[in-house]
């Protein structure tokens, strides 16, 4: 179908969706005996534009709906982030809607926490219960006793939640995400004076140098950058972009690289500076760029004096020749682009290491240039250390000062136990969860007020990054709500209404849709006389507003007071003698930070690198495995100063011998039949480095012991056959 055709179709659908949104529909099964008057043809699909919220990238989607049921999710060709493409996670959210274990109605706990014993209650009762608790706080003048914990929210929902908390009088609103790009923002602020995430022009670059940025699977906007990567490789007639990846574990992104440099964890910043020093020393830098940023080559060289090649070689564990070669290639190929990602950021010296990469880009003149980096316009400013806020909240909770915790998301799963969150939450007398599946947090909640699935919800989805123009994607319900659930913001509005007084006055909207439309209307800045309804329908048809005003940020400039990046030596929890291996916990391609785990399609999707399905594993270098007597699939015990896990071993040729890696995303205590009991959650191993208030998930040391020969590892690929590429001649 041509794009035009289905947009035309979309017009009809979107319009009818708007008009019929609030009306209850005939739910009988016979309607096709009498043809429905909405032009529903059995077997004929219609497309609704919406947005994906499976990860912060915020891609545009089109949902094929047939006979009132969502069938398939495809990328929205108009959406500037993903241009009609979509990743595995995004396509699987139809299974969120039709998950057999969804919480179908509000629940009240009637057994011990975590037991999963709940009784059904009505919405009136549920909201009444929450409002009573809040009223009690108001009466006791202890409005700070309310805490709200959510993922990073953007757009109208962020506005609504903060208004709710502000008006109620609580400062305990923490947005926390495990894989937050906070540290990238913090680094950008230190280098450039503002916390904008970088926009990479990968498509146009000729030399891509990634320091632990896994842009194909999860870094910032994987579909966008994956697509750009394809362009970089084969999209131009005469140029094939070269790609070098730095990181101790060969990630999915690294697997596409031409050269893989397995640097020691935590040494990436030093490596970048070593390259920078070589580029400066050999005068391969772009002098114009240096001048424009107010830097002097000589001074910079002096500042980087410590990072001479032999020392960097020793720090990174890479061959000296390779480092020099990559540095020269990077400096002499224009445009060249260096990326710094989460694998670097989540080290103890993360932010400075990221800044070292900024410096590399600056040196070769790749700031604000085609094929280089620009400030991203997606969501220019955001939290720069929400982990510290979380730690503060945990402190408060420990002190017994939080009486009611409203939780959206699953922090019991995604906050490492080393922070003490689990104990702290246990001290909160009343926990409300808005999860649509009984996840770890919901299982511990006193009240579950189930949210709609994404495909039943209204909302605006602002991509975290991946665009140079502001983008507001819209979410619209594509099917009638399946169960007696309510959207999270609707619950907030209803609670405010119930509380009355100041709260009701501050949140007067009848519905979230109204609020959303108001916000969009304000953004659109319509002149008087223009019919907003028509604009609204138009926006819904296209999936959002993609022609926002250009951002004020025109480019990156090295801050006048920004010091040269000087990452300290990496700091690891655990004594190297007792715990000889570095532990890497990396986001799984299919599950991201764990939110993909309940969907069977993603469980069944073989992990691209290991081909493991339905489980978790620990990756061990073949040499190390042989030394420890560990075979493919053997059960091993991984012990860190923080905890112990048992999981099967995958002998993984693409990892440093002194490193082991465990994917994130599995090991849920709940989340429905498909996620429950599958694999383990490696966050149980993550230890903290002293009192640092910075997420350093990859700075823990572990030891490995073989337990038995049976690990219940299931791989889609034959372990030995996977080594025999010569038989298929590729």
């Amino acid at each position: 179908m041509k794009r035009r055709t289905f947009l035309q179709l979309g017009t009809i659908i979107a319009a009818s969706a708007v008009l019929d949104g609030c009306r209850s529909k005939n739910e009988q099964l016979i309607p096709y005996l009498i043809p429905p008057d909405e032009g529903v043809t059995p077997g004929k699909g219609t497309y609704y534009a919406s947005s994906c919220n499976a990860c912060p990238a915020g891609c545009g989607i089109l949902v094929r709906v047939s006979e009132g049921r969502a069938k398939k999710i495809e990328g929205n060709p108009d959406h500037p982030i993903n241009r009609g493409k979509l990743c595995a996670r995004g396509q699987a959210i139809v299974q969120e809607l039709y998950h057999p274990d969804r919480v179908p109605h509000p629940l009240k706990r009637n057994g011990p926490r975590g037991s999963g014993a709940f009784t059904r209650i009505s919405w009136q009762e549920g909201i009444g219960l929450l409002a009573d608790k809040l009223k009690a706080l108001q009466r006791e003048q202890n409005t700070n006793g309310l805490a709200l914990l959510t993922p990073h929210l953007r757009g109208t929902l962020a506005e609504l939640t903060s208004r709710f908390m502000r008006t109620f009088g609580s400062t305990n609103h923490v947005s926390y995400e495990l894989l937050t790009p906070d540290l990238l923002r913090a680094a950008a602020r230190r280098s450039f004076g503002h916390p904008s995430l970088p926009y990479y022009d990968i498509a146009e670059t000729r030399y891509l140098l990634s320091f632990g940025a896994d842009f194909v699977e999860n870094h910032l906007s994987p579909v966008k950058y994956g697509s750009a990567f394809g362009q970089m490789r084969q999209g131009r007639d005469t140029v094939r972009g070269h790609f070098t990846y730095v990181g101790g574990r060969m990630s999915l992104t690294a697997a596409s690289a031409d050269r893989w440099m397995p640097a020691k964890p935590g040494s990436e910043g030093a490596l970048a500076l070593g390259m920078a020093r070589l580029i400066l020393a050999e005068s391969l830098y772009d002098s114009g760029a240096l001048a424009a940023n107010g830097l002097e080559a000589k001074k910079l060289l002096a500042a980087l004096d410590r990072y001479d090649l032999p020392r960097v070689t020793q720090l990174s564990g890479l061959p000296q020749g390779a480092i020099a070669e990559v540095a020269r290639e990077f400096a002499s190929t224009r445009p060249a682009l260096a990326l710094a990602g989460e694998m670097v950021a989540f080290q103890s010296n993360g932010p400075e290491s990221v800044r070292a990469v900024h410096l590399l880009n600056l040196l070769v003149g790749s700031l604000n240039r085609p094929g280089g980096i620009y400030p991203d316009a997606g969501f220019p400013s955001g939290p720069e250390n929400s982990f510290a806020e979380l730690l503060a909240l945990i402190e408060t909770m420990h002190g017994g000062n939080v009486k009611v915790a409203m939780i959206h998301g699953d922090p019991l799963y995604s906050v490492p136990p080393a922070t003490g969150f689990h104990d702290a939450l246990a001290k909160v007398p009343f926990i409300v969860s808005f999860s649509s599946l009984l996840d770890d947090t919901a299982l511990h909640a006193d009240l579950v007020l189930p949210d709609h699935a994404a495909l039943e919800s209204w909302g605006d989805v602002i991509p975290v990054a991946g665009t140079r123009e502001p983008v507001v994607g819209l979410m619209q319900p594509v099917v009638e709500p399946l169960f007696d659930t309510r959207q999270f913001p609707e619950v907030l509005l209803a609670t405010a209404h119930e509380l009355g007084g100041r709260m009701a006055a501050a949140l007067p909207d009848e519905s979230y849709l109204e609020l959303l439309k108001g916000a969009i209307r304000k953004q659109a800045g319509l002149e008087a006389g223009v019919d907003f309804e028509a604009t609204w329908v138009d926006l819904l048809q296209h999936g959002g507003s993609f022609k926002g005003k250009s951002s004020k940020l025109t480019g990156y400039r090295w801050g006048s007071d920004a010091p040269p990046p000087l990452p300290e030596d990496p700091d690891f929890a655990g004594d190297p003698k007792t715990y000889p291996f570095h532990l890497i916990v990396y986001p799984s391609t299919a599950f991201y930070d764990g939110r993909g785990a309940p969907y069977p399609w993603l469980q069944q999707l073989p992990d691209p690198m290991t081909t493991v399905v339905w489980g978790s594993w620990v990756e061990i270098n073949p040499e190390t495995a042989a030394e420890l007597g560990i075979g493919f699939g053997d059960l091993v015990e991984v012990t860190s100063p923080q905890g112990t896990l048992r999981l099967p071993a995958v002998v993984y040729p693409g990892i440093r011998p002194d490193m082991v890696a465990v994917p994130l995303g599995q090991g849920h205590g709940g989340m429905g039949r498909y996620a429950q009991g599958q694999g383990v959650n490696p966050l149980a191993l993550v230890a903290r480095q002293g009192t640092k208030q910075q997420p350093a998930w990859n700075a823990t040391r572990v030891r490995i012991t073989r337990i038995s020969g049976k690990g219940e590892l299931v791989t889609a690929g034959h372990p030995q056959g996977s080594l025999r590429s010569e038989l298929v001649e590729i």
Partner: protein
Amino acid sequence: MEKMTSQYRWGMVVDLDRCTGCGACVVACQAENNVAICGKKEISEGRNMHWLRIERFWVGKYPDVRARFLPVLCQHCQDAPCEPVCPVYASYHNPDGLNGQVYNRCVGTRYCGNNCPYAVRVFNFYNHEWPKPLDNQLSPDMTVRTRGVMEKCTFCVQRIRRAKEDAKSENRAIRDGEIQPACAQTCPTDALVFGNMADPRSRVAILSRSPRRFRLLEHLGTHPSIYYLKGGGREHV
């Protein structure tokens, strides 16, 4: 080779230099074609139902190790080994060059599955069910296959049919790029390109003439409709 009676010969090009192995195509295929959900036990028994798989090969030793990805789906061979061995014509060649599979006709000898050198045919060893309300996601365009039948990639023949009907009603030929199977549609890096090989100007035909082209297990003489373009790597810089 079969005499062509159609103006279309559907084919695909898989650019291994673009393919990152992310797996979006696998889920797209599963979503589009009502491919059964297989649990851990089922996959451990070698009974995964995916029509499209991404093979991952390790080449070399640390630190000079590379992982290579190879998306493998039905190659829609022009001389398909699966076709002549089916005793009931459940596996047949259609005029557009597709290897069709008639689920109703299949008796389950599994001969085609054996004889497919690419091992892309999957057999319903289990009687698959979709727990309610997950069955709502089943596409009405595709049969839900029962136990005991063989199934495989169809190049999303339902999309081809729809496009043909559209084209016929407008009295024109199908345009290049008008049809995209679910896998090619979603592929973030555009590694999969689908089109009419019989039209020398189509994108897929142009790409299939690339010097990087090769076909899988070409020495078997199956004449697949899928061309692969060799991936890059250090050796290609």
